[in-house]
């Protein structure tokens, strides 16, 4: 059923129940997002797609559109809040772009550029987190995890559907974990997909790296905004 929703005062036709972030993208309105993967259920973990829906702040990746919905995306207060959320993610981990293998392919970094982040307004935490090298094909750089849970939800054992990644503890002690025995059963293509799925440089495929020259890396060819507005799956 076709419904009408308003985004920043402009009325758009949409399919009832479709996800707000998709509806916006299909109509050329970019809502920054990080944990959301098009075609997969919204996670709502990173909060960077926060918009105001009928006066209330919500994550656009978890909101199904409904008739008469009034959405504010580009209102300055909302834009500032999204920028603040990205700055918070940068200060919370050790996001050392100059030394990171994912630089140029990192969705968090690309979002920082998109939102014009020059510095984080929050004090940099410099958390001490150990790296995990035990799996044969995967190396976990825990410093960079933003706890989006993409890997937790979407990377599973191909036969049993068991989760391979999980999050231990909560709050400042939270830590991304890997089931080494299940990870070692992952075929190489699945390892590559998992590394690609990770929006930051936390899940790293062993044995490859720095294989794209500067200037030809993923988000240097096409920005995260352009990719989101392409209206197709990643």
């Amino acid at each position, binding site marked *: 059923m076709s419904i009408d929703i308003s985004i920043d005062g402009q009325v758009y036709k949409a399919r009832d129940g479709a996800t707000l972030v998709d509806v916006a993208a299909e109509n050329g309105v970019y809502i920054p997002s990080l944990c959301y993967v098009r075609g997969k259920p919204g996670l709502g973990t990173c909060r960077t797609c926060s918009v105001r829906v009928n006066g209330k702040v919500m994550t656009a990746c978890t909101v199904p559109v409904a008739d008469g919905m009034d959405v504010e995306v580009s209102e300055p207060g909302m834009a500032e809040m999204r920028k603040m959320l990205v700055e918070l993610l940068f200060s919370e981990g050790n996001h050392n772009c*100059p030394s990171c293998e994912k630089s140029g392919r990192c969705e968090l970094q690309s979002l920082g550029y998109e939102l014009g982040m*020059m510095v984080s307004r929050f004090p940099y935490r410099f958390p001490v987190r150990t790296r995990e090298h035990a799996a044969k094909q995967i190396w976990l750089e825990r410093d960079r995890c933003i706890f989006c849970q993409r890997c937790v939800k979407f990377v599973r054992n191909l036969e049993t559907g068991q989760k391979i990644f999980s999050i231990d503890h909560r709050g400042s002690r939270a830590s991304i974990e890997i089931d080494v025995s299940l990870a070692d059963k992952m075929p190489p293509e699945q390892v590559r997909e998992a590394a690609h799925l990770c929006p930051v440089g936390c899940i790293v495929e062993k044995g490859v790296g720095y294989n794209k020259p500067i200037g030809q890396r993923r988000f240097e060819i096409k920005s995260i905004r352009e990719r989101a507005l392409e209206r197709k799956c990643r």
Partner: protein
Amino acid sequence: MPVNISDKRETASHELPATPLDPSVRAARDEKIQIAMIALCGCWGCTLSFLDMDENLLRLLDKVNITRSSLTDIKRIPHRCAIGFVEGGVASEENIEILEHYRKNCDILISAGACAVWGGVPAMRNVVPLEACFREAYLDGPTAEPGVQPVIPYHPDIPRITTRVYPCHEVVKMDYFIPGCPPDGAAIFQVLDDLVNGREVALPGTINHYD
């Protein structure tokens, strides 16, 4: 002018006699916007990027005069400056003193590069205790000289190292930030050109990068 330096133990370079500048050149310089530059705990890469402005540097020099900097080899801020260009993070007592001196003597301070903005590569030591860093650098590291009793340097003349590396804005107020390791010459030019022409600083996403 005769200079009597015999009764002092130390002489700073600016106290040595210098050839007086032609008054018209001096006047033209004094009219320009004064810039002071400094590298704290960094690699000087951002200062090299400053030179990467290439011919734009000449456009800029029509309007600005660079006072203290490694490029001019002037070692003190001679008079109040409009702009302080700071590269590097804060990793020692000396860095704190210099940065505070810059804050007092400059109207606007710019954090240039990853080290100034958030600590950068030196801040990688923030997740390791300082003692372990010293131990690795001077006692157990592969570059320790064989057959020589290893020591951790300690002398009143050597600035004490801070326990962690701080971004400049955690020590004094910084007004503008140019990320990058190092930032592009074009990004540095954009910010300085906006400032000297009285425009609002706007660094476009296309030349802003963090690596």
